[in-house]
């Protein structure tokens, strides 16, 4: 009662079938590999181990079965050794077939399929593999080696039983193979989700930390000190504005959204303080649509502030003659559109000083973008555009009816 084509004489060197292709070439690589290559290598090793272990187990099981329940009638012509050799050859054919099929499974992307499309494919593939297995076995035994059938059963019956047995075997092999990959995919997904959660937490922390830009704060204090003698009323006004800003940045960190109106007031305070520092180098144009002013719209706290701060840093501070900022907001369909434009070149490599100064705002923009998506879903967007010519525009789109989170 063996599962496969009948026995014959053959050389048993087939168990030494080398783990082909991929493994052999990766062996050449050194220990100095990146983690993904090392993982790939570990997977290959696992595959070779499973493949060899599984088939050896199958072979031993077959031999034990035959030794225990050997059919006296079929044993007529074949010796025990013949049967074992034949089994070894059958196993070797199985290894070869599964090994090459695996290459195609990867190439056709079956590893990424769900169960539903996979089931018919597994069955079809198992039948095809079994057919090749059977054909190869019978062709080798009766065609090439010209061995007489050792049993009393007719050939067609043997072939059919071999086909069915082989299909069951191969289905088992494929199921195991895809089980492993499904499990691994699940694992990867979980790791990805954990990483995402960690990124979000980190972004929240960074957002809290980066709310008051210390460079701005101390420069403002320095200008204020000079302004006290030069223009006392203006200095008093500046102290109030600075207090507003500090209070807002301390409080708004705890809120998810703030009214746009409130955010605009803070940006006005901020720009007034920057104008004390930069004087006529900083010019500002506001374009707030009327329906936005009255619309009681919610935005993430410090969003507009971050964009404007970024615009001052890149568009004004780095330019000897400064420039003009344009801040415009309008309702565009079912979304709020905020645009902050500053003179500049998006593609120009930042000077070392600007790069150092800007490293914190790069984080700021990324932060703002992450926060937007968390709060308003995937339809919310923050993009940097190289327009109009000679300028950089930060463009924010906030859907008015965000999907429920």
């Amino acid at each position, binding site marked *: 009662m063996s599962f496969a084509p009948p026995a014959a004489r053959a050389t048993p060197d087939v168990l030494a079938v080398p783990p082909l292709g991929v493994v052999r070439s990766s062996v050449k690589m050194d220990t100095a590999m990146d983690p993904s290559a090392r993982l790939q290598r570990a997977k290959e090793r696992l595959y070779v181990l499973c493949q060899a272990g599984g088939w050896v187990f199958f072979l031993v099981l077959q031999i034990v079965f035959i030794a225990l329940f050997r059919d006296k009638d079929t044993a007529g012509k074949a010796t025990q050794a013949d049967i074992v050799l034949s089994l070894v050859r059958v196993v070797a054919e199985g290894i070869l077939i599964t090994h090459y099929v695996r290459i195609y499974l990867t190439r056709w992307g079956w590893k990424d399929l769900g169960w539903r499309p996979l089931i018919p494919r597994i069955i079809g593939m198992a039948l095809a593999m079994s057919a090749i297995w059977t054909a190869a076995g019978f062709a080798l035994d009766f065609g090439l080696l010209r061995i007489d059938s050792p049993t009393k059963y007719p050939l067609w019956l043997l072939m059919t039983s071999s086909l069915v047995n082989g299909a069951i075997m191969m289905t088992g092999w494929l199921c195991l193979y895809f089980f492993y990959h499904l499990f691994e995919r699940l694992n990867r997904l979980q790791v990805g989700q954990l990483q995402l959660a960690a990124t979000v937490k980190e972004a929240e922390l960074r957002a809290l930390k980066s709310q008051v830009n210390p460079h701005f704060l*101390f420069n403002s204090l*320095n200008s204020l000190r000079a302004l006290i*003698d030069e223009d006392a009323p203006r200095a008093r006004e500046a102290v109030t504005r600075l207090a507003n800003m500090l209070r807002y940045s301390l409080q708004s960190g705890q809120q998810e959204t703030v009214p746009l109106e409130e955010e605009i007031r803070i940006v006005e305070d901020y720009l007034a303080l920057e104008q004390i520092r930069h004087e006529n180098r900083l010019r500002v144009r506001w374009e707030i649509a009327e329906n936005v002013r009255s619309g009681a719209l919610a935005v993430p706290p410090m969003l507009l502030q971050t964009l404007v701060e970024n615009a001052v840093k890149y568009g004004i501070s780095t330019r*000897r003659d400064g420039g003009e900022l344009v801040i415009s907001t309008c309702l565009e369909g079912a979304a709020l559109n905020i645009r902050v434009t500053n003179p500049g070149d998006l593609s120009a490599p930042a000077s*070392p000083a600007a790069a150092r100064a800007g490293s914190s705002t790069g984080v700021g923009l990324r932060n703002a973008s992450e926060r937007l998506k968390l709060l308003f879903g995937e339809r919310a967007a923050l993009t940097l555009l190289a327009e109009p010519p000679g300028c950089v525009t930060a463009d924010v789109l906030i859907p008015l009816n965000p999907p429920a989170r």
Partner: protein
Amino acid sequence: MKVLLVDDERLARNELRRLLAAHADLEIVGEAVDVEDALAKIPVLKPALIFLDVQMPGADGFSLLERLEPPLPQVIFTTAYDEFAVKAFEFSALDYLLKPVDPNRLVAALEKLRPRGSAETFEPGSGTHRLTLEDKVFVREGERCWFVPVKNLRLLESEGNYTRLYFDDQKPQLFRSLTAMEERLDPKGFFRANRKQVINLAWVDGIEPWFSGGLLVKLKGGMKVELSRRQAQDFRERMSL
């Protein structure tokens, strides 16, 4: 002592002016709004001390020192908040003040640099006379920077349009050609050993005969420099003098 203020913000310069008014021995000879402006004004105004803002439009304060012809005036950096710059200052033991400036810290910084001054006769950035052994060269590499006294330079090595300076256990690159540097060095103290290298004679430790009439000069600290036959002849004459 003549002082130049370099800062892009008018109010910041005014604030510094007011603080310096308390120091009668300082004469503010001018103000510059950025690196280009300062580069133009320093050879004319000849300040002995500059207050230098780190963050300015265009190029930062450090690059002014890199581009200025030595000898350099004394420098006190000013910055509102810049972790990188402060790290560089502390590493290099440069004088710096944080804005808004604490008047007591200003006094301390001025006290620290006064004894150094050959202040009145100082002519910075003129690029004409030779550097003395006490003059300093400013060099920056990555986040580190140095004011290196000329006498500490063991070896200067040409790297295209730049020169690698060897001193202490450092070897940063200077944004100046070896030929330009050689013209400024005292020929009594420095010697052009070959096409690529200039050595400080005070650092010569030993001399060995080398191939085809050349010489191998060993410098203190272990570096070796090859001299061609022609250079070796010059070298022998110089050393025998």
